[in-house]
């Protein structure tokens, strides 16, 4: 980890500017029209005066996110320093906007991007927008628990050999489940072939502040990284960071961001990024050590119950699972005869416990700086009780979370092509023009341009039957799919 200037990190320029503005009691004749909440008392009752009082527009003392020159620029520079990046952009459209800005900055229409297929839908959406061509690297699948692993170096080598004209490599690191790839080696390999490395680090904000956790994208020398501050970083939902190394032209990336970013960025989001960055820089190491301890405790207690498998670093195999993010509490549930999504539903409906997601064979409980031991005991106690009451035979259960797709058209071609809507049962062998995914985790089962196979249809029917929340299609009930004519 690069060392940051600890004294400077105690500042929070945007927050301080908002405080100054509040004391000045400026009379607002600008938007937003609620005028510090006076025009919308119900909103004030909901959010509180403090909150609506800083819902203000960009103005000279508060800078402007589209073209920062003062307090936002200072805050971004502090964030860059804290994350060991050459530049940091504050993002207000979620990490989705950060991921899309990376791709739109690195690729143009017709250019190739090497990308693992188990990416978040935001990646493929970006390809629909810009017309770049994906070269998919199929991830290894963990033989026991069925989840997709990271990017294997030999597979990347092959993809690069077959596509020497690709302009960039996209990596998920860590995955939702906590799997990390060998980032340093990937960066070396890609750079040796003149390709940029873009990292979706949505689930890895905490890596930057705890040296016992896996290497960060910036430290590994990646060119850009999208970091979900609102996940493990503690900022407000929808706020995020886009980090750049010195290999990337900051001005061009800003132009790309401004193609789609709002011109009325919320100061609630911006100031939450500023304050959270300060908190992470000053106290992150200690906080995440605590989170690691909590997750480790929960894992050992859950494994003690029997039947469940809360996995961790033992999955590491030197390649496709190079490292594991031990703050992630992912649990394999199939051995007790329940799909992850069934355990997820039971936890919420019967035990008043909301976890992050359940898929076919796993659940993920998100552990963070806001957790208390007593709540961990509830989660573990509930899992023990679910096993006692609901465990059943597991024959006939699907175990695979990932089916390698057959790609025949680019996402953009397929998305905009002439298409027709067919009942699910009549779609086998056709080319899909839309997404199908369980959300969360939001990793497409089908993406535009892929052939619909029997395996895929079986997966869709199974996931629906088990109660997964599915989306992406034009037909909200996923009874029909749009296919190319």
């Amino acid at each position, binding site marked *: 980890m690069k060392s940051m200037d600890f004294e400077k990190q105690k500042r929070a320029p945007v927050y301080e500017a908002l405080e100054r503005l509040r004391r000045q009691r400026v009379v607002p004749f600008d938007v937003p029209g609620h005028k510090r909440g006076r025009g919308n008392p119900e909103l004030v009752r909901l959010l509180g005066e403090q909150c609506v009082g800083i819902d203000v527009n960009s103005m000279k003392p508060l800078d402007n996110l589209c073209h920062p020159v003062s307090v936002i620029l200072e805050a971004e520079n502090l964030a860059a320093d804290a994350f060991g990046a050459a530049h940091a952009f504050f993002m207000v459209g979620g990490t989705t906007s950060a991921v899309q800005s990376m791709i739109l900055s690195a690729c143009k229409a017709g250019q190739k991007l090497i990308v693992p297929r188990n990416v978040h839908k935001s990646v493929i959406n970006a390809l629909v927008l810009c017309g770049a061509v994906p070269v998919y690297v199929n991830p290894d699948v963990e033989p026991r628990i069925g989840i997709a692993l990271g990017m294997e170096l030999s597979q990347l080598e092959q993809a690069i050999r077959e596509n020497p004209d690709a302009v960039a490599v996209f990596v998920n690191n860590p995955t939702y489940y906590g799997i990390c790839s060998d980032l340093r080696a990937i960066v070396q390999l890609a750079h040796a072939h003149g390709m940029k490395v873009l990292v979706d680090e949505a689930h890895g904000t905490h890596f930057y502040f705890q040296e016992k956790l896996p290497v960060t994208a910036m430290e590994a020398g990646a060119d850009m990284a999208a970091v979900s501050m609102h996940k493990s970083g503690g900022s407000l939902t929808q706020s995020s960071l886009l980090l750049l190394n010195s290999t990337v032209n900051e001005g061009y990336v800003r132009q790309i961001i401004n193609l789609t970013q709002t011109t009325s960025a919320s100061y609630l989001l911006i100031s939450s990024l500023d304050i959270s960055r300060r908190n992470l820089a000053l106290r992150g190491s200690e906080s995440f050590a605590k989170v690691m301890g909590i997750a480790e405790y929960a894992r050992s*207690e859950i494994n*003690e*119950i029997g039947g469940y498998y809360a996995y961790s670093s033992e999955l590491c195999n030197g390649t496709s699972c190079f490292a594991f993010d031990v703050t992630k509490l992912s649990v394999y549930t199939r051995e007790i005869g329940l799909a992850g999504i069934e355990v997820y539903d039971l936890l919420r*409906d*019967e*035990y*008043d416990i909301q976890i992050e997601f359940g898929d076919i064979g796993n659940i993920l409980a998100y552990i963070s700086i806001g957790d208390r*031991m*007593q*709540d961990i*005991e*509830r989660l*573990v*106690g*509930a899992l*023990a*009780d679910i096993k*006692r*009451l609901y465990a059943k035979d597991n024959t006939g259960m699907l175990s695979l979370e990932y089916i390698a797709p057959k790609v025949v058209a680019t996402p953009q071609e397929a998305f905009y092509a002439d298409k027709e809507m067919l009942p699910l049962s009549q779609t086998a062998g056709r080319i899909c023009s839309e997404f199908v995914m369980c959300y969360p985790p939001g990793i497409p089962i089908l993406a535009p341009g892929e052939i619909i196979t029997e395996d895929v249809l079986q997966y869709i029917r199974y996931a629906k039957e088990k109660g997964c929340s599915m989306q992406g299609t034009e037909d909200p009930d996923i009874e029909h799919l749009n296919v190319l004519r």
Partner: protein
Amino acid sequence: MEFWFSEMHTDNVKASIRCEKQLYSGQSDFQRIDVFDSAEFGRFLVSNGSVIFSEKDEFIYDEMIVHVPMAVHPDVKHVLVIGGGDGGVARELSHYEEIRTIDVVEPDEMFVEVCREYFPDNAKGLDDPRVTIYNQDGLRALRTRHGEYDLIINDATDPFGHTAGLFTKEFYGLCYKALKDDGIMVYQHGSPFYDEDEAACQAMHQKAFRVFPICRVYQAHIPTCPAGYWLFGFASKKYHPLRDFDAKRWKKRDIKTWYYTPNLHTGAFMLPKYVEELMEGAEDRKK
């Protein structure tokens, strides 16, 4: 000088006790603990601003939570007390010679220390040689126990604070698993009177009702509780609190009590109409 301790029983109801002085104040990993001395209630202990017990009225719930199940179950050998770090429940249990082990699970060591220092009459219950204190979370202690106990007493009182985990479906389920086939579980059931406590009280009954084949509620008058009125839950795998109640056997023991009597045992299960309806409402909402 006037020095009053006040507790909000609802947003609109405040109960106050005039205090002589404050004897202790401390913050543990789990709660803020205060001890006051008062003319009316003697010493009383406060957790996060709520009275937990006073010298004047602790006998009521300690007796009611122990003697009711003990007069029903014919042969209690192993007891688990969850919470109960003050020792009052253990003290009442120590009257019964057939009991072999009393496991007290109290996560908060500071709570036990404070009770030992300021409430020695309660805490002496913890000195019974059959008592083992586990400084552990209640849910955690329960997870590893299978068919071991004849009686489990949940002495935790607050369904929203640091003991929230002891009022959940997983808690009742783990208790069921930790009990023998004829085991009984009793628990603090809260006060049903004020509107805002009603839902919690009902939810509690619903959870236990769905786990145990026999599930009944009984009552006592406890002055420092909200509205001075308190409920207990009786959940059981086999014994019914009234049909299997053996008054003669209990009388023969000749235990000195101040609140509990065999007559009161039966009466305590005769609930006011509005409480009956509240509980029946919970039983109907089966999922």
